[in-house]
């Protein structure tokens, strides 16, 4: 949600320092806030809006040119033709037209029709004695009947006291096209003199309000290049290559997942659990000593502080609620190292639902503590005895279970893999990570976009969550870190982008490690969470399209980097995440580059591996 502060007169520079998205300057002589003077230099991301009431075109044009206005807000009886002519005058220059409509108890939305093609935004203000600046709100419920898809500004008497009702408003469907909140008179010491502290508090609350309370669950533009399309394809990757036996199960999910995610009651429950049970928002921590050592501004997104110790639980919370909405009575899941198994067993305990976890026989032997955790949480752990008896075979077993129990069982896949809609659904649940990064970074650095987002990739769920809201922002570099194991050419590796070919694994077309004959090969990494022979279709597409930069890191490099983070920052990362910290030997950054590393999990589960490796 963007913020516009209107009625600049005496202290625009101070307001600008808060970095609102829009600053409004009123060019109407009768207003006590009428502006006449010089506009100071503004932050790059703050747009200048000129507010006019039935001014002649040449006057508006003169102001646009004089002040370099990026938008005009028309508060009078300007006709659609008037708006259009103005828009055409600036065909070469991006000057946005905002047309204002005043609302009292109700509103005839038919009035908007003629303006549909002649302005860029609508602004809804309270109908009062004056054209704006009346100091009280209108009943936002009127907007329930908003028929258009044009983004609008919500205006009229909004103050600090409205934060709660804004929170409620934003969770409702009619807020879908609300582009910005416009404030003015309720943040003034006198007309035109803004109360900075109050504005600052409002802005913070507004950002938290939006991000914490109404998770967007992966809302995004329809023409995205890097998100799944309707059929679940990311470029050439994805789809649902499944036998007919699985069709009804996945089809039921496909037809319902977006609808269910958009239900306000679903969002509310999801958000509540993320907050009260998982402990979100997770901190965004500036890693000072690491930053000094590597000469960049390094932030750590602390997913390791989630309940159960990793980001996995964001997805299992989402999917257990989804399963409940679909009326499922039984949950199955696959797990490699046991992290996703624990996160699934946890939410099943929370909801009192039967839970069966498939785990490779070999993994059961080497991850005993997690097996015990799952059992303690009430889950049944069934060994996968086929094939190589690790993660891919556990996944096969879970799929076979689902084939045999198509009606009452929901399969909680733990990563952005599997047939459509799983990769997209899991990415949406994990997108809360980048959603938080955005507002947290804005608080800390004054901008939402870092220069780079870095994450380790096995199947790729923590990476999908960390990249999600940045995928279509070309100014944000995406760095994916894969496990090279003992070296890419060693024959013991899990670097799928380097070693994989296009193929089908677990119902998805993606890059996967396989023989020339199309048999899937067994990957290797010291980290049990990265040794998957495939990669989520989103990541295959990021790799092939060149949008993502892929780096592979060996066991040794990852272990060394993990130890370094422990000693520089006092944080012991999961070995998966340690791979992401090892990029600094390969990749140089500029001193002022903001690099966000998704700290996907904590290292407690890996203690034995660290002990053995470093002889601790």
């Amino acid at each position, binding site marked *: 949600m963007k913020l516009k502060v209107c009625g600049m007169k005496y202290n625009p520079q101070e307001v600008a320092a808060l970095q609102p998205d829009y600053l409004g300057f009123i060019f109407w002589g009768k207003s006590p806030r009428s502006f006449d003077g010089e506009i100071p230099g503004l932050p790059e991301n703050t747009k200048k809006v000129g507010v006019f009431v039935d001014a002649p075109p040449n006057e508006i044009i003169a102001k646009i040119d004089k002040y370099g206005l990026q938008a005009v807000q028309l508060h009078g009886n300007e006709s659609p033709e008037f708006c259009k002519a103005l828009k055409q005058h600036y065909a070469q220059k991006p000057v946005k037209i905002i047309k204002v409509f005043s609302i009292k108890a109700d509103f005839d939305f038919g009035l908007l029709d003629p303006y549909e093609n002649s302005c860029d935004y609508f602004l809804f203000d309270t109908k009062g004695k004056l054209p704006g600046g009346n100091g009280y709100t209108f009943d936002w419920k009127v907007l329930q009947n908003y028929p258009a898809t044009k983004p609008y500004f919500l205006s009229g008497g909004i103050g600090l006291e409205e934060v709660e009702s804004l929170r409620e408003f934003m969770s409702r469907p009619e807020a879908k096209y609300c582009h910005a909140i416009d404030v003015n008179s309720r943040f003034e010491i006198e007309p035109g003199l803004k109360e900075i502290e109050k504005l600052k508090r409002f802005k913070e609350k507004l950002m938290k309000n939006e991000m914490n309370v109404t998770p967007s669950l992966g809302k995004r533009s329809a023409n995205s290049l890097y998100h799944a399309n309707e059929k679940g394809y990311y470029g050439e990757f994805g789809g649902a*290559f499944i036998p007919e*036996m699985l*069709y009804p199960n996945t089809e039921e999910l496909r037809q319902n997942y977006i609808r269910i995610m958009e239900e306000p009651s679903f969002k509310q429950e999801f958000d509540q659990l993320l907050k009260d049970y998982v402990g979100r928002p997770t901190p965004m921590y500036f890693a000072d000593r690491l930053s000094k050592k590597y000469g960049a501004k390094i932030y750590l997104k602390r997913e390791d502080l989630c309940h159960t110790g990793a980001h996995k639980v964001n997805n299992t919370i989402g999917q257990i609620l989804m399963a409940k909405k679909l009326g499922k009575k039984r949950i199955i899941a696959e797990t490699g190292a046991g992290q996703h198994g624990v996160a699934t067993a946890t939410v099943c305990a929370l909801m009192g639902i039967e839970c069966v976890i498939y785990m490779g026989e070999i993994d059961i032997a080497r991850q005993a503590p997690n097996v015990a955790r799952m059992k303690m949480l009430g889950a049944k752990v069934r060994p996968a005895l*086929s*094939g190589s008896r690790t993660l891919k075979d556990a996944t*096969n077993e879970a799929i076979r279970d689902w*084939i*045999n129990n198509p009606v009452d069982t929901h399969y909680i896949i733990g990563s952005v893999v599997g047939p459509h809609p799983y990769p997209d659904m899991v990415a949406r649940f994990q997108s809360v990570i980048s959603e938080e990064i955005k507002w947290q970074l804005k608080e800390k650095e004054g901008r939402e976009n870092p220069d780079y987002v870095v994450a380790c990739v096995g199947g790729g769920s923590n990476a999908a969550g960390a990249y999600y809201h940045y995928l279509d922002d070309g100014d944000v570099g995406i760095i994916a870190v894969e496990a090279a194991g003992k070296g890419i050419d060693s024959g013991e590796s899990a670097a799928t982008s380097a070693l994989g070919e296009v193929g089908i694994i677990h119902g998805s077309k993606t890059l996967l490690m396989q023989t020339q004959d199309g048999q899937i090969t067994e990957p290797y990494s010291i980290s049990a969470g990265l040794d998957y022979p495939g990669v989520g279709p989103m990541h295959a597409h990021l790799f092939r399209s060149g949008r993502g930069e892929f780096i592979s890191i060996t066991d040794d490099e990852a272990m060394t980097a993990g130890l370094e983070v422990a000693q520089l920052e006092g944080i012991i990362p999961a070995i998966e995440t340690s791979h992401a910290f090892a990029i600094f030997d390969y990749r140089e950054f500029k001193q002022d580059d903001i690099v966000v590393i998704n700290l996907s999990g904590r290292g407690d589960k890996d203690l034995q591996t660290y002990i053995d490796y470093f002889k601790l």
Partner: protein
Amino acid sequence: MNRINQKLREDGKLLSIYFTAGYPNLDDTVKIIAELEKNGVDMIEIGLPFSDPLADGPTIQKSSTAALKNGMTTEILFEQLKDIRKTVSIPLIIMGYFNPVLQYGVEAFCKKCREIGIDGLILPDLPFDVYQEEYEDLFKKYGLLNTFLITPQTSDKRIHQIDNASKGFIYMVSSASTTGAKQGFGAEQQSYFERIASLHLQNPQIVGFGISNSDTFAQATEKAKGAIIGSAFIKHLTQNGVDSIAGFIKSIR
């Protein structure tokens, strides 16, 4: 006319047998096919083994793993089959997962099948819509029939779509299960068999999954044109070897 269509026109119920190529021994393929034809089997599904057969139960999984261990590859299978039409005349179908076909090259695979005299393919994880959009023309070009699966959960609407897209038979999966999982048919299966019969589909149906003996064969073919035996046959091979095929077939009908 394709051998499958010819066979489907014949009177009587069809017995089709699935086996995993390269199992129990790498070079058993031709011998098994010859034995099956000699003993009156109507049609054969030659299983191309795959490392991750996610629709299959333990029996076929194990035979696939063993076949791969024996060294079976797509190339070797084609090599083994190159002269098969000199001696065998019943319909031969290759059944397998899509990934090995994709790696071989779908067109190259189809071309090779035609050269050898393979009549059709069953690729359970190649979805119906992808087949129609991307591969139907290739299959036609090389005279191969593609067979789709239906299950008790498949809606009538989808069954009719599949029926319209099929040119041979429909592979009717008997119950919601992986291969070899169920023993015998209950009331649920009976009503499913009846439901499908009442749809009066253009393509005959051949029932697979859960057929292991003469009783289940008789039940499955009461309404349907034929039935496929896979896991039970492989179990028999494991226990009794390739020379015992005649006895197994006689025990079915």
